[in-house]
């Protein structure tokens, strides 16, 4: 187990280094001067340009810039905006709301998606199963920003069941509607995945044995369900990246002052440093979550042993 963890950590180090370098190279090696938009529509004064170039090593080769960027990143320094606000400072202020939003979304995913998956698997081939399949297929192709806008419009602005925009504090109850909007796509996939896998498992020999020895139905289903949870957990882990991307959109729509809202507002203000810093952190978080998910396998499936 520990050797496996060590190997995975090494692999992840490689991927994190590669991914951050890639981002860095893409962002900074692209045509366009990072200082060009800094002073509005006129050119920045020459002295200021020189000072900024020195400060951000803009005249150094790519690898020097990257090394200093990573060193700063490891020290928790994500740079600052042209306006002088610290990226890390803003990030720390924004993350609790986003964590709440993500937890609500994952909660909906697991509970509603799980229930839908189990129910449709048990009613395979019946009318309700076909109806659920059709509905989930349609929902799976609605982009998250459309879902968010529609829910805000319908349930927020028209019916007034939920607040249409979120206060700066972003309490749990306020975040229910955005969290649900964020979860819809993943929820649909969880339901479909669980249905397919559970149908497979319910046909397995061990399930027939369990039925033959007279176990009550719910115990039999639980037997199969435990094995079907593995792909679901993998999916939720892998989907975490999409969830973070969706959070940017949903937070923008509902004016939530979380990490995603921060990114959207920075995009509109053309603060590239903020966008790049925050998104890089999100990507590292995503990678760590995926590592944890892989390690979770062993707990869920005793057949998997890490050597």
């Amino acid at each position, binding site marked *: 187990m520990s050797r496996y963890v060590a190997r995975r950590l090494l692999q992840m180090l*490689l991927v994190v280094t*590669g991914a951050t370098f890639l981002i860095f190279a893409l962002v900074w090696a692209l045509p366009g001067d990072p200082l060009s938009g800094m002073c509005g529509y006129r050119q920045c004064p020459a002295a200021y340009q020189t000072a900024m170039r020195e400060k951000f090593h803009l005249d150094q080769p790519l690898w020097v810039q990257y090394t200093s960027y990573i060193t700063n990143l490891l020290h928790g320094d994500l740079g600052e905006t042209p306006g002088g606000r610290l990226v890390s400072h803003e990030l720390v202020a924004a993350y609790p709301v986003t964590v709440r939003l993500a937890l609500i979304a994952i909660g909906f995913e697991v509970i509603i998606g799980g229930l839908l998956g189990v129910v449709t698997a048990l009613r395979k081939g019946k009318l309700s199963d076909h109806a659920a399949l059709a509905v989930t297929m349609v929902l799976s192709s609605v982009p998250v920003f*459309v879902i968010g*806008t529609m829910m805000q*419009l319908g349930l927020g*602005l028209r019916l007034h069941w939920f607040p249409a925009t979120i206060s700066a504090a972003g309490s749990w109850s306020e975040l229910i509607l955005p969290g649900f909007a964020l979860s819809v796509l993943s929820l649909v996939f969880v339901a479909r995945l669980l249905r397919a896998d559970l149908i497979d498992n319910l046909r397995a020999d061990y399930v027939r044995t369990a039925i033959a020895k007279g176990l009550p139905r719910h115990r039999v289903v639980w037997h199969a369900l435990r094995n079907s949870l593995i792909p679901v957990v993998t999916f939720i882990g892998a989907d975490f990246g999409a969830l973070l991307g969706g959070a940017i959109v949903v937070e923008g729509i509902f004016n939530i002052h979380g990490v995603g809202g921060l*990114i959207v507002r920075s*995009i509109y203000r053309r603060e590239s440093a903020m966008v790049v810093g925050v998104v890089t952190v999100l*990507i590292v978080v995503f*990678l760590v979550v995926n590592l944890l998910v892989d390690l979770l396998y062993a707990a869920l499936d005793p057949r998997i042993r890490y050597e």
Partner: protein
Amino acid sequence: MSEPVAAAVAIKAEPPLMPELEAQARLSRVGSASLTAQAWRHLRRNPLFWISSALVVGLVVMAVMPGWFTSKDPALCVLAQSRHTPHAGAWLGNDLQGCDIYARLVYGTRASLAVGALAAMFTFAVGVLTGLVAGYYGGWLDAVLSRLADVFFAIPFLLGAILIMVSLAPAPGEPAWKSIGLVAATLAVLGWPPCARVCRSAVIAVRDMEYVRAARGLGAGTPRILRVHVLPSVITPALVMTTLMVGGFIAAEATLSFLGLGLRGSVITWGKSLSEAQDYAEVSPHMVIFPSVVLSVAVLAFVALAEALREAFDPKAR
């Protein structure tokens, strides 16, 4: 359907020389013809396939010939009609600038489909090539290409796209094709690893099969083996994957445009219409609802088509 029957008839007509071999040949004959023929037979009976392909064809025609669907000029906007609800002059109403929403939706098809198709073609080419090379040669080449794919795969799609698009400063007076190309390239750069992975595992599955080894033993060169013996089993999963991705790319482009990062300049797109309409969602919901529906239907058409194809070509899913 007709091919296996014809084959069987042809075999019957000749006097059997070696009954056992003949039977085996007939079996394998039926087996080989069956993959495509069976898939087609399955597809033909699937209403989902017909509905989705009709939608896709309709969208393509709309993208190529928008003039067939509306006689209005999408750029002709009457400010006096700003945010008018649907009326006889404009079936879906007018947007903030007083443009005809229906005309803008029709003309917006081109950009969305162009981005989706371009990105998918690029993804397909890169994915199939890397998958073939990594899967067939194995060894260090496979290790390097797979790790490279891992790195790209590790970057969540929308996050990566936001990063790239933010750093691409818009050039004033940028032509539409350049903007479309940039977005398509961005999406493809982030989207190729899944396709490469699928192709790689498809190659590995057939690489050491008897018929490939036999071809090698008979002296076939690597390009021929790859083209004639390996590629056919890679193409199908890659095509299904690419079809699915066209839908995803269209949604991604709209999302980026919605965030103000996608297509720029005067390009008409569904995402930009939605982005503009969002601020008026409460007073003019028609500005939000119609583009949303069109966008979702377009994505659904490709997702459903991919689902139908996957079901038809994957015997396990039937």
